[in-house]
């Protein structure tokens, strides 16, 4: 086991009923990396995330979190998660930015404990890290999609996790703000030392920000640093995806059509 890996996925396969969603995945997220996990819709990205987060049970293979087998893992506050669904929460909810970010400390504080001055500092620091300090007392519903997503990132980093997992975080972000959004992520990665695992279907947009890339489409087609990835040309890339879809047919010739 490589001690500098935050997440280590070994030979993981997963199926819903008869459909194989993931086949023999090997993936490691090195400490300090900004890893972009790319794949088209339906490629099993979300399933892999759910497996990592323990929302689905790993039945084949093994996932190690900070070197600990996932089923024995207890320090969930070391892992921050920002879901795609953060965009579809109840926008009418009367909570301020401060209250939303404070809710990220719920698990870390434990039952019956109220946030003290140390926690209040941490909340303000997390809000500042995502550039939202002037909105502390605004209701979350009054903010734009991109601003809301920043608040959810602040909620995820307020408990000072070692890794932040983001599932398509720019879904509700204006295209003109996407660039500054990724710059903020880069800042978290480089300046605050948070390892990032970013799941997206769009490699183009993140290519100059990430340090590592993994391409997923049921199988893991590529896994390496951005430098290695850049040596691949367009044909290689489409071959990766095309090949994956081709393989899918082979394994399911008893079914009429997949997906």
């Amino acid at each position, binding site marked *: 086991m490589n001690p500098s890996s935050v997440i280590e996925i070994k030979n993981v396969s997963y199926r819903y009923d008869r459909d194989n969603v993931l086949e023999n995945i090997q993936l490691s997220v090195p400490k300090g990396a900004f890893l972009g996990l790319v794949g088209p819709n339906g490629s099993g990205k979300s399933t892999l995330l759910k497996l990592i987060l323990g*929302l689905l049970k790993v039945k084949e293979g093994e996932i190690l979190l900070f070197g600990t087998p996932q089923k024995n893992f207890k320090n969930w506050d070391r892992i921050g998660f920002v879901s795609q669904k953060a965009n579809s929460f109840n926008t009418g909810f009367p909570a301020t930015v401060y209250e939303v970010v404070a*809710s990220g400390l*719920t698990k870390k*504080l434990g*039952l*019956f404990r109220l946030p003290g001055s140390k926690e209040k500092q941490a909340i303000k620091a997390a809000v500042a890290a995502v550039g939202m300090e002037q909105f502390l007392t605004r209701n979350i519903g009054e903010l734009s999609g991109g601003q809301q997503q920043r608040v959810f990132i602040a909620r995820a980093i307020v408990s000072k996790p070692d890794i932040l997992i983001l599932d398509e975080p720019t879904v509700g972000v204006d295209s003109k703000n996407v660039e500054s959004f990724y710059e903020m992520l880069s800042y978290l990665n480089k300046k605050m030392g948070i390892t990032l695992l970013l799941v997206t279907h769009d490699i183009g947009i993140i290519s100059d920000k990430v340090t590592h890339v993994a391409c997923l489409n049921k199988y893991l087609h590529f896994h390496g640093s951005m430098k290695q990835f850049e040596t691949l040309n367009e044909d290689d890339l489409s071959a990766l995806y095309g090949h994956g879809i081709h393989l899918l047919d082979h394994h399911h010739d008893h079914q009429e059509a997949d997906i």
Partner: protein
Amino acid sequence: MIEAIGQYEFLQNAFLTGMIIGVIAPLLGAFIVVRRLSLIADALSHVTLAGIAAGLYFGQTFTFLAWLNPMYSGMVFSVIGSLFIERLRTVYKHYQELAIPIILSGGIGIGVIFISLADGFNTDLFSYLFGSVSAVSREDLWLICIVSVVVMATVYLLYKELFLLSFDEEHAKASGIPAKSIHFIFIILVALVIAASMRIVGVLLVSALMTLPVAASMRMAKGFKQTIAYSVLFGEIAVITGLISAFYLDLAPGGTIVVASILILLLVIAAKKFVKAG
């Protein structure tokens, strides 16, 4: 009025009970409204009615049960009803709201059976339906005090868990807090508060005291703590003005309290419009 309260114990009971209910009903109501569970309060209040009717019937039929305060049986039914709702919500995963009409009609059905068995409506039952200024006993007051202490202590201690569960249930579950147990405790608190509020606002209007002050509060509050604070403030104003007018005009307080809540709500909406336009 104040003179009368000093003079008559029943008025003291009613006002103290009312002021306590004015705090705890909107307090839980704030969580209920933001979680879009307003109708659960309605369903549980009808189950409580069944419990109260059962208590009245058994107390009148079996002399050895004559001591039974119908509020106890109301609470027991309400808590059992809340457990059923949770169970049904997991049975009908994709039709969670279906639990509400099932429990609501079940509550009325059982209630009506006991009411018929007990030989129809009497004034006692009327006071449970619409509240009463004169029917609150010292015993009721003590029971409501205990319930309110339990409710306020629990909400204080579990505030951040309840907030997270209300704001983002999925995240609450993913972050590893005992979301199920917290929700379970919450729904039992709701059941208790509904049974406790019954004496003042009555079974048919309990949910109004849990939702209307919150509806008004949400129009103007910044943040959730402020939402709770304004809700409690509006709840208190509604209960006190409602009880006073009920006393002087000889009306059922359930009606006056709810009308007062609606007036507050309309005022807040109008004021908000006015501020925006100005």
